[in-house]
C-alpha cells in the first residue's frame, strides 16, 4: 500500500538526471550552475552529492511518522497513505518549526521572497495518485533510484545486502531511523560522509513532545482545582474574621 524509493548508491553514476527531472516536475529552474550546487535548497528538492566520486542522493525521507507533521502548529504537513509527506502551503504561517525539528534538516525556505513558503520533495504525490512512479525513479538510467511498494523494496534491499558481500555498508538507512522512512538508502561508504545522521533514535520523534503534551488536560484540571482551593483556604480566615466581627488577621 505504502510506496517507497530505494536508492542504491553503488549503482549511481552521478548523471544528475534525477535532479533535472525533479526540477521539471516541480516547475523549478535547472541549468549547469544549479546542477553544480551540492546542497538541497528551495529550488533544488533533491541533490546528488559527490564525495570522492562516491555518490549519494539527498531528498525528503518522507518519514512514516513525520516530525514536521507533528510539530506544525497549523497542520500543514500530512503523511498520506500512499507514502508521501505533503505540504499544504495555504496553511503555512512561516514559523519554520518544521525546519528546526526535521531530523534530516530537509525543509527549505524561500528566504528571498517577501511572503515565503517552505519547500521540499513531496515524493511526486500527484504522479503517485495517477499510478506513476516518482519523476526521479522514472528517469534513472541505471536503476539506482527504484520506486515500488516499501515492503518489497525493504525485501530487495535486504537481498542486495546479503548478496553483495562486503560491497555495502551493512545498513539500510531509513528502515528504522526515526521509526522508518519511505525513502531507503544503500551505500558502500558510511552515510555520515554525506551528512546523514547515524545517531538517530529508532523511535519516531513526535513521541518526545507528545508524551508531555498529552498530560496537559490532566494538569489543567488538577491545577485549576488546586489553585481554587488555595484561594479558598487563604482567603477564608478573613471571611471568618469578618463574620465574627474581629479585625482581619495580620497580613502575611
Amino acid at each position, binding site marked *: 500500500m505504502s510506496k517507497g524509493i530505494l536508492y542504491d548508491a553503488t549503482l549511481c553514476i552521478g548523471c544528475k538526471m534525477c535532479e533535472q527531472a525533479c526540477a521539471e516536475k516541480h516547475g523549478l529552474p535547472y541549468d549547469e550552475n544549479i546542477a553544480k550546487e551540492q546542497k*538541497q*535548497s*528551495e529550488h533544488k528538492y533533491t541533490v546528488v552529492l559527490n564525495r570522492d566520486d562516491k555518490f549519494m542522493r539527498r531528498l525528503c525521507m518522507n518519514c512514516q511518522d513525520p*516530525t514536521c507533521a*507533528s*510539530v*506544525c*502548529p*497549523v*497542520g*500543514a504537513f500530512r503523511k498520506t497513505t500512499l507514502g508521501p509527506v505533503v505540504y499544504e502551503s495555504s*496553511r*503555512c*504561517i*512561516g*514559523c*519554520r*518549526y518544521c*525546519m*528546526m*525539528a526535521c*531530523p534530516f*534538516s530537509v525543509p*527549505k*525556505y*524561500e*528566504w*528571498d*521572497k*517577501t*511572503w*515565503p*513558503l517552505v519547500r521540499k520533495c513531496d515524493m511526486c504525490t500527484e504522479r503517485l495518485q495517477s499510478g506513476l512512479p516518482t519523476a526521479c525513479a522514472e528517469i534513472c538510467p541505471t536503476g539506482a533510484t527504484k520506486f515500488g511498494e516499501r515492503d518489497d523494496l525493504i525485501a530487495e534491499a535486504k537481498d542486495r545486502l546479503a548478496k553483495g558481500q562486503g560491497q555495502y555498508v551493512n545498513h539500510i538507512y531509513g528502515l528504522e531511523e526515526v521509526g522508518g522512512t519511505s525513502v531507503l538508502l544503500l551505500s558502500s561508504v558510511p552515510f555520515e560522509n554525506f551528512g546523514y*545522521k547515524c*545517531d*538517530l*533514535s529508532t523511535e519516531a*520523534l*513526535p513521541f*518526545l*513532545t*507528545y508524551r*508531555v*503534551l498529552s498530560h*496537559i488536560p490532566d*494538569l*489543567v484540571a488538577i*491545577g*485549576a482545582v488546586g*489553585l*481554587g482551593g*488555595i*484561594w479558598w483556604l*487563604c*482567603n477564608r480566615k*478573613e*471571611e471568618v474574621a469578618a463574620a465574627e466581627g474581629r479585625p482581619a488577621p495580620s*497580613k*502575611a
Partner: protein
Amino acid sequence: MLKGKVTFWRVVFAILVVLGAYATVLRFVRGLGASTHLTDAFPWGLWIGFDVLCGVMLAAGGFTLTAAVYLFNLKKFKPIVRPTVLTAFLGYLLVCVALLFDLGRGYRIWHPLVMWNPRSVMFEVAWCVMLYTSVLSLEFGGVLFERFHLFKLLRLQRMMLIPLVIAGVMLSTLHQSSLGSLYLIVPNKLHPFWYTPLLPVLFFLSAVCVGLAMTIFESSLSAKHFGKQLELPLIKSLGRTLLVMLCVYSVVRFEDLLHRKALGLLRNGGWETGLFLLEISLACVLPILLLLVPKVRENPKGLYLASVLSLLGFVTNRLNVGITGMEAAAGQQYFPKWTEIVVTLAIIGFGFFVFAMAVKYLPIFSHEAVPEPIVVPEVLPREVPELSNVES
C-alpha cells in the same frame, strides 16, 4: 520628568525609531533573507531566541505576583500588582509584534485558531499565549475602567478576577514550560548542556525566578524614574523568595546535568562551555551567593544587583537554548544581522515608552482603588489619594 528635554535615552530612542523604521521596511519589502542572517541550516535566530523566548520569560512577573496576591492572599504585595501586570501585558503584546516580524507570513498568525494540530507544542503555545494575553488585558482592564470611571465594567471585572487569575496562572504554567518543550523534538541538534527531558520543568522554574527578579528590577527602576517611594519591605521579601527559587532551580539543573553525565563535557572546552559557565554563574551562582549575605538582601542596591545578574543569567540560558546550543548541529555560526538587533532594541524601547506613558496617564501606582476581590463596595471611590501607605 516627561517634559520636552533632550536626554540621553530620548536620543537613543529617536535613533532606534529611525533605524527601526528602516529595518521594518527592509523586512517587509525584501523579506527575511535580506533582513536577517537566518539560513536553511539556522532557521531560528535572535527574534525567536530573544524576543520570544526571553520576552515571554521576562513577562512572567504577571502570573507569579497575581498568584501571590489574589490566590495566596499575600496582600502586602498589592501595591506592585499593577505595574507588574502592566509589564506582563506589554511584554506579551511585544512578543506578538516580534512574531509578526519573524513569521514568514505574519498575516496568517491567526491560522492556529482554525487550523488545529493538537500534537504540536507550537500549537499549544500559540493558544496559551493568545488566551493569556486576553486574560492580561482583562486583568489590566480594571485600570482603564477605573481611569475612565466605567464602574459597571469595573465591578464585572472584579467579579471575574479570581477565575481570571487562576486561568492566568494555569496558562502561564503551560506555555512557560512548553517553550522548553519546543526543543524536546531536537535531541540530535541541541547541545547536551541544554537538551534534557526536563526542559519544560527548567523553563517553568526559571520563569518563576525571573518573574520575581523582574519585579524587584522593575520596582527599583520605577522608584528611581517615577519618583516613587521604593517599597523596601516588599522588595526584601521578594528577594528572599527569589533566593529560595534560585536554589530550587539550581538543584534541579545540577542534578539533571549530573544524571545525564553532561558535566564531563566541560572538559571539551569550546564556546558552548564558555557560554554555559557564563549562564550558570550569572543565573545561579552569583545571585545565590549575593542573596545569602544578609547585608546584601536587606539593601536595595544589593537586591537590584542580584536580580539584574539573575535576569542576565536566564536571558543567557534562553539564548543558549535557542542559539548557542543549536550552532554545532547546524554546522555554522549565527550572529544576528544589524536589522535583527535594531528591531529587537526598537521593540524594547517601544515597551519602555508605552510603560512610561501608561504610568503618566493611568492609575498604575495608585493601586488603592482596587478593593478586595471578594468585597464589592456599593459605591466605588472616584479618586482615592495615597491610601495604601496607610493601609499597608
